[in-house]
């Protein structure tokens, strides 16, 4: 059920979940771990928060349940895998563009401190 809600700005939880799913289908715990990694431990989601966010994202049409598990033989059948939808990808791209514009403005005004962050650390 897609809604007519504006796609951006995204909440940190929704942003990081989309970012985690942009690389491929994942189940709940994989998403949880990926979010923690991508946010350099800044965003820690518990199980309750994660599934609340997933529920709202499903309702907004940002993600969907993947029909099949990547390896049914080795996997617990209770697991459900999620994948990003086209609408979700649009939202993620729009949010990343927005971040990019903010960074560009900050750079223009010489507000950015001189540091570098290695992705995935």
């Amino acid at each position, binding site marked *: 059920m897609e809604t007519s809600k504006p796609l951006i700005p995204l909440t940190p939880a929704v942003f990081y979940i989309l970012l985690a799913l942009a690389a491929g289908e994942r*189940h*709940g*715990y994989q998403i*949880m771990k990926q979010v923690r990694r991508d946010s350099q431990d800044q965003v*820690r*989601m*518990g*199980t*309750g*928060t*994660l*599934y*609340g966010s*997933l*529920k709202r994202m499903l309702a907004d049409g940002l993600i969907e349940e993947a029909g099949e598990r990547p390896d049914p033989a080795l996997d*617990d059948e*209770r*697991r*459900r895998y999620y994948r990003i939808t086209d609408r979700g990808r649009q939202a993620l791209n729009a949010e990343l563009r927005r971040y990019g514009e903010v960074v560009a403005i900050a750079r223009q005004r010489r507000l950015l401190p001189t540091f570098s962050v290695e992705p995935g650390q």
Partner: protein
Amino acid sequence: MSQRRSARARRIYGWLMRLYPAAHQRRFAQQMLQTFEDHYRDAVETGEKSALGFWLGVAADTSWSLARERGAALKDLFGERTASMKTALAVAATAIGILLLLGLRVWLYPEVLSAPHGGGSALGSVVGLAIFVVVYTLVAVVLLRAGASSVERSAALRRATLLGAVVGGCALVAIAVDTLAGPESTLSLIVWPLVMLAALIGWGLASLLTTRAGGSWRLGVVVALWSGMVSALVAAAAEVASTLLALPQLAQNELSNPDYLYWGQSDIQSYAIASAFALGMMGLILAPIVASVVGGVGGWLGRTDGLVAVREEVAS
């Protein structure tokens, strides 16, 4: 040992899961339990976190998400029923208002309970009025629950409440005229029939239009009944309020009442209060009956085949 702890942790989380709304549980309980098990294994069994730290995190996360999911479930419920809930609240508030007024009146003038009125004690009028108000509220809730299932019903009840409030407002004016000018005054003799006519036409039309707009004949009758109930509630509130605001005038009016003269009672004020309560009670009994009958006729006329039958009758 570790397996036992793990099984216990899973059981505890399983119990916590039951606190979530049923729909959330149905959809996500199994997945959440699986994710919890993975998380517990990685965090506690590998020694990354202490059990206490892990459970504190779970408690915080569960409290937050429970509040959010319960809130969302309530929002959904009220979103669907907002119109119906507002109508119910308006009716319940009127009923509670009448009971409060009744209590205040009795508290200020407790003699009314023991004073004789008509053939018995005035206590009967007080208790009767209170019982009717409670019964009304219960009936209203039952009607509303039936109406909450569809938007059409909910909208029809809202319009019926508005009509009931208008008719009740007219009755309030008539009661004020009655009280201030006296029940035998010319003005009072004109106003009351007009109010009754307006009530009959209003209830009948409400039912007719509801049926014609596509609702069932039964819905038309329910709308008229609801409207009659709301009118009677407002009128009963006005009757009770008049005993608080204009007791001297009410007592004065009773002095020329043949009933009062016949029973020859000494306490005119308690007689006046009991009379007003009895009138309110009579309205609560009669209004829904009359409204249902008129609504039944209006609803029948509102049906396509009902109109055809009338036209054929007129043509012949």
